[in-house]
């Protein structure tokens, strides 16, 4: 059941992205930026939390889920650490993913060469 929910929620989020790209001529970069920012905002106003509870990885794996982790992290950190949490919360919650992206991204870029386009 969790897998079906993840499939459905993840699929729907990706379709929204596809519609934005096809319908409004947004580039992938614009879609990703929009999704992360909306993830943060939707989390802040309490809408994304129920979606994440329902969809599991279907809600946390797409880019709005990255925004969800940022928003949730900053709110928890402000509760715990006060004013410093404003700056530490979001990045702390996503530190693993960001460091992995930088490290693996660099590593793979150095190891592999682009394939010739056919």
């Amino acid at each position: 059941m969790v897998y079906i929910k993840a499939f459905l929620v993840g699929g729907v989020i990706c379709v929204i992205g596809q519609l934005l790209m096809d319908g409004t001529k947004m580039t992938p970069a614009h879609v990703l930026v929009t999704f992360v920012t909306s993830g943060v905002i939707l989390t802040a106003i309490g809408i994304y939390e129920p979606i994440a509870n329902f969809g599991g990885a279907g809600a946390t794996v797409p880019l709005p889920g990255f925004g969800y982790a940022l928003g949730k992290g900053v709110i928890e950190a402000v509760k715990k650490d006060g004013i410093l949490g404003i700056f530490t919360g979001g990045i702390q919650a996503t530190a693993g993913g960001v460091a992995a992206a930088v490290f693996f991204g660099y590593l793979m870029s150095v190891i592999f060469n682009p394939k010739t386009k056919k």
Partner: protein
Amino acid sequence: MKNINQKDYKDYVDGIVPKPTYFKNCIWAFIIGGLICTFGQFITELVMKYGLNKKEAATATPIILIFLGAFFTGLGLYDRLGKFAGAGSIVPITGFANSIVSPAMEFKREGYVLGVAARMFSIAGPVLVYGFGSSVIVGIIYYFIY
């Protein structure tokens, strides 16, 4: 029928062709995006079986997916998937890894600092700027409300 000229015919075709693509793109995005998320769910369940709690699993899952996304981009397979998956391969976190490796590989000849390291962030940079930026703003608002 003989009165129809080439331009009219082209307009007519253009008016009809994009619609099926629209629908097809969404179906592919739904299936591939859904499958990547299902796989993410599988990884989450797997690492939790090996003793990670929910919060740790929420960190481990993106790390593993980012590794796979970067790796398959390096192999050239992820971009092949992206040709028909569209947003289905861009929106999941694996697509974020793809957006890092793809330009970085491409610009390797410009060196390891201004080529690879700088180009890694041509899409990931804006994502982090707006992501971190909005999280700080949410933090400020929350601080004053709380």
